[in-house]
C-alpha cells in the first residue's frame, strides 16, 4: 500500500523536482570533487553566503526578479568574495580559514543590510531571504532543469578540456608551477566552475546547505576509489542519488523541507561509504586489524 501511495504521488511536479535535484546533485558532486581534494571544502559555504549581496544589488539595479539576473548577481558576488579570499591569503599572514570566515560572514551581513533596505522600500517579497537561506526545491520548473543541465554540463565539459591541468593543480601544485602552468588562472577557473555549481544549487537547497551538496558526495566517492576520473563519476552518482531520494522522501510526508532532506540523504551515503567502502572503509580496517592481531599471536608462540 505504502509503495502504491508513493507511486501515486509521483506526479508531474514531483518528477520535475526530482530530476532537478538529481541534476543538481550530479553537477555539484562532480565539481565538489576538486574542492574536497584541494582541501577547500568550505569554499562552497563561503561562496554561497557571499552571493547574497549580489542578489540584492542585482535587484536594486534592475528592479527585476527574473531568476537569470539574480543568479548573475549571485555569481558575480560569490566570485568577488573568492577573489578577496585568495588575495587576503596571498598578501597577508592571515590564513585561509580566517579569510574564508571573514568574507563569508561580512558579505552576508552586507547582503542583509541591502535586504532590509529593499524591504523598507517595500517592493520586494518578504520570502526572498528565506528562499535564499533554505532554498525551495518545490519551485524548480522544467525551464530550470534546462538551465541546470546546460550550465552544469558546460562546467563539467570544461573540467574535461582542462583535465590534465586541473589534475596537476589538485595533486601537485608545486610541480604544476615548475612546469610553467599559470596557477592563478587555473585556480580562478576552478573557482568559477564552483561558483556556477553553487549558484545553480542556491535556489533548491539554499545557502546554508549548499556546502554539504559539494562536500558530501565527493567525500563518499573518495572512499571507494583512488582515481580522479572515477571519483568524479561516483560523486556525480552519489549526488544524484541523494537528490532523488531526498526529493522523494520529503514528498511522502507533509512539512519535511526538501533541501535538508537531500543533505541528510547525502550524509547517510557518506556514513555508509566510510563504514563499508572496500579497502578503505572502517569495517575492513577493523577486520584487517583483527587478522593481524591473530597472526601476531600465532607467531609469538614457540
Amino acid at each position, binding site marked *: 500500500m505504502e509503495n502504491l501511495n508513493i507511486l501515486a504521488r509521483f506526479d508531474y511536479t514531483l518528477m520535475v523536482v526530482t530530476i532537478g535535484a538529481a541534476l543538481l546533485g550530479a553537477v555539484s558532486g562532480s565539481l565538489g570533487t576538486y574542492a*574536497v581534494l584541494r*582541501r*577547500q*571544502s*568550505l569554499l*562552497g*559555504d563561503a561562496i554561497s553566503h557571499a552571493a547574497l549581496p549580489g542578489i540584492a544589488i542585482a535587484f536594486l539595479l534592475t528592479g527585476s526578479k527574473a531568476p537569470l539576473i539574480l543568479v548573475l548577481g549571485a555569481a558575480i558576488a560569490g566570485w568577488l568574495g573568492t577573489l578577496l579570499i585568495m588575495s*587576503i591569503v596571498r*598578501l*597577508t*599572514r*592571515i*590564513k585561509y*580559514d*580566517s*579569510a*574564508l*570566515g*571573514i568574507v*563569508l*560572514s*561580512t*558579505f*552576508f*551581513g*552586507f547582503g*542583509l*543590510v*541591502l*535586504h*532590509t*533596505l529593499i524591504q*523598507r522600500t517595500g517592493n520586494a517579497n518578504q520570502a526572498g531571504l*528565506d528562499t535564499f*537561506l533554505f532554498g525551495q526545491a518545490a519551485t524548480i520548473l522544467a525551464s530550470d532543469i534546462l538551465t541546470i543541465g546546460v550550465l552544469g554540463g558546460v562546467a563539467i565539459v570544461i573540467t574535461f578540456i582542462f583535465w590534465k591541468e586541473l589534475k596537476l593543480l589538485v595533486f601537485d601544485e608545486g610541480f604544476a608551477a615548475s612546469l610553467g602552468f599559470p596557477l592563478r588562472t587555473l585556480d580562478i577557473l576552478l573557482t568559477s566552475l564552483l561558483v556556477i555549481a553553487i549558484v545553480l544549487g542556491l535556489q533548491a537547497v539554499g545557502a*546554508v*546547505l549548499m*556546502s*554539504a551538496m*559539494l*562536500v*558530501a558526495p*565527493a*567525500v563518499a566517492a*573518495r*572512499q571507494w576509489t583512488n582515481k580522479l576520473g572515477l571519483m568524479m563519476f561516483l560523486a556525480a552518482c552519489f549526488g544524484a542519488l541523494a537528490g532523488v531520494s531526498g526529493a522523494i522522501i520529503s514528498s511522502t510526508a507533509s*512539512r*519535511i*523541507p526538501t*533541501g*535538508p*532532506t537531500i*543533505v*541528510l540523504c547525502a*550524509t547517510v551515503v*557518506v556514513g555508509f561509504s*566510510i563504514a563499508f567502502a572496500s579497502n*578503505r*572503509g*572502517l569495517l575492513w580496517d577493523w577486520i584487517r586489524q583483527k587478522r593481524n592481531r591473530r597472526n601476531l599471536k600465532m607467531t609469538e608462540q614457540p
Partner: protein
Amino acid sequence: MLQGQLEIQLIAIVTAVACALPGVFLVLRRMTLMSDAISHAILPGIVLAFFLTESLSSPLLILAAAGTGVLTVVFVELLQRTKLVKEDAAIGLTFPALFSIGVILISRFAGNVHLDMDAVLLGELAYAPLNRLETFGNDLGPVSLYVMGTILLLNLAFILLFYKELKLATFDASLAATLGFAPTLIHYGLMTLVSVTTVGAFDAVGSILVVALIAGPPATAYLMTDRLSRMLLLSAVVGGVNAVSGYWLAFAFDVSIAGSIATVTLLMFGLTFMAVPNRGLIAIARRRACQKWEFAQTMLVIHLFNHEGLPEAEAESEIAHLHEHLRWDPAFATQVVKYALNNRFVLQKETQLTLTQQGRTIAQQALVQ
C-alpha cells in the same frame, strides 16, 4: 540618546568583545571555521531545548546548545581520526547535517512553537532590550546584557587564568604536550567557550554573523601587531568600535543592526589591510616601488666604487655613459642619479659622479653582503 539606544549599544559592545577574545585564539590556531560550524550546528540543540522550556532565554537553552556545540567538535574530531576525511571536509559534513536536523525539526513542529527561523539565523539586536530582567518588580536591565556580560567575564577569566597554557598550546602544541600542559584539554576548554559564546551571541546577532564578530576583529588586530597580549587588547577595541559604528550606521540608514556591524567589520578589515604600516597593501606597493630604485642605486654606487681611484674612473663616472656600462636607458639613468643625489650617496660635478663617504660605506656593505 535614548535609554534603549544606549542599551543596544552596550549589548553590542559586550557581545563583540566576548566574541573577539576567544576569536583571537581561533584565528591563530587556524580554526576559525569551527565557529562557523558550531554556530550552525547548535540549531538542533536550541530547538530541542526550546521544545522543553518554551523560552528563548532560559539558561537550559544555552546549556543544551553549548552541549551540541561541543558535540560538533567531537564529531569533527572523530571523523578526522578515521583518517578517511580531512579536517575541512569533516567540518563541511558535520554542520550541514546537524543543521538540517534542526531545520526539519522546526518545520515539522513549527505549528506548535514560536521559534522563528530568522531569529535564530539572523538575530535582531533591536529587540534585545525588550526582554528584561526583573526581581521584585525592579527593572534591572535587559536579560541579554546579563547573559553576554557573564559570558564575557567567563571568557576573560579563562584567558587570564590559562594565559600561558593557551599561548604555548597555540604557538607550539608539541612543546606544550611535552611539558605536560595537556593541549587536548585546552582545546576542548576553548571549544566549550566558543560554543557558549556563540549560543549567547546568536540571540543578538544570529548564527551567521557571529562568525564576523569572532573572526573579524582578531584578524584585523593580527595585521597590526606581533604580540599576543596586544592582539587580544586590540581585537577587543576593534570589536567595540565596529559594534558602535555599526549601530549608528544602521540607525542612519534604518537597516539591520547585525548586518551593519558585519559590514563595518569588513570595512575596518579592508582599511587595515590597505593602510597598516609595513604589512598593508599600500606599504607593500610602496616597498616594491622603492626596491627598484634602491637596487638601481646600489648598482650605481658599486659601479662607482669599483672604478674609484683607477685610471678609467673618469670615463666610468660619466652620467651619459651609464647606459652603456650598466645597460640602463638614459631616462632611467637620470632618475637613478637623482635618487642617489637625494640620498647624498653621490655628488655631481658637472657630468661626473663621485661617491660620498656615505655612498662608499653603502657600496662596501652591499659587496660584503
